[in-house]
């Protein structure tokens, strides 16, 4: 049971920080990231381009939301959803035997493989903890009686 507020804050800062960083390095070179996506050979160049423009900002905004504590569980859902997608993508890539850069952290990325999956699983665990355990915001504030 994760009831400790401080621990949840640490989890938010770590996960949020990682996502902001991952998004920021991709924003700096969107064409490079578009090429990374294209290398997976799942979508065509146009879709790769659009994903390369939007995905980094989704990572940054979700990461920022986690850090700042705004829309936290929505952000945790986005982050967890992205990580599930990345894990499946990496597995499919390994099964297809493709030799590609994961594209996870821009220029410091490495080859898709078990290391990437383990890393994503670790982050997914943190994301799910936040999604399930984080209880803040409007829920506790409303003490109004039920209306008829």
């Amino acid at each position, binding site marked *: 049971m994760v009831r400790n507020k401080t621990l949840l804050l640490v989890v938010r800062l770590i996960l949020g920080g990682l996502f902001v960083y991952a998004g920021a390095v991709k924003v700096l070179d969107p064409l490079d990231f578009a090429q990374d996506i294209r290398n997976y050979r799942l979508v065509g160049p146009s879709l790769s381009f659009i994903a390369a423009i939007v995905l980094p900002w989704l990572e940054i905004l*979700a990461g920022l939301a986690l850090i700042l504590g705004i*829309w936290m569980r929505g952000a945790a859902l986005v982050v967890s959803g992205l990580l599930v997608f990345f894990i499946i993508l990496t597995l499919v890539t390994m099964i297809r035997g493709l030799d590609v850069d994961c594209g996870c952290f821009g220029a410091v990325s490495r080859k898709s493989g078990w290391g990437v999956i383990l890393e994503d699983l670790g982050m997914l665990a943190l994301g799910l903890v936040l999604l399930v355990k984080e209880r803040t915001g409007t829920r506790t504030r409303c003490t109004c009686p039920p209306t008829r």
Partner: protein
Amino acid sequence: MKDAGRILRQALALGALSLIVAAAVQFPLVQRFVRGEFRESFFQAAEFPGIRLVTLAEAEELWASGAAVILDARAAGFFDQGHIPGARNVSAAEPGQALPAGLRGAAKDGALLVYCEGGDCQSSLALAKRLHDEGFRDIRVFSGGFEEWTKAGLPEEKGHGQE
């Protein structure tokens, strides 16, 4: 779950916000995309005037005529499993790796045909850019790569080939 709707709305709002911010920040790139750029590859062609992409037909012609030095940009393991006959392995994954001796003395305006696995994979373009920096000015990137080559039933060679 009572919160499910709220959480989903937050997630969707984050998605919509990302779309807006991305379009605003990358507006110049988006404009170029709308005008028809980045539909085939993502390198800034103006920065590398000596690089151009070629199709399978052009690659085959260059190979058959022997008009170009063929360079395989994949890792050595993949190269050994099969490559275009006569190709040399210059793995782009090792930036410190010296160019093959034959290439160092080669005419800078001689044609080079570069490929990797396929699907506009990055290593052939990365190698092409590096060769461009070395002064080569006729670099053709076969973006279909080895996958398209073998699918077309063209011959391949196994083992180390020539260095």
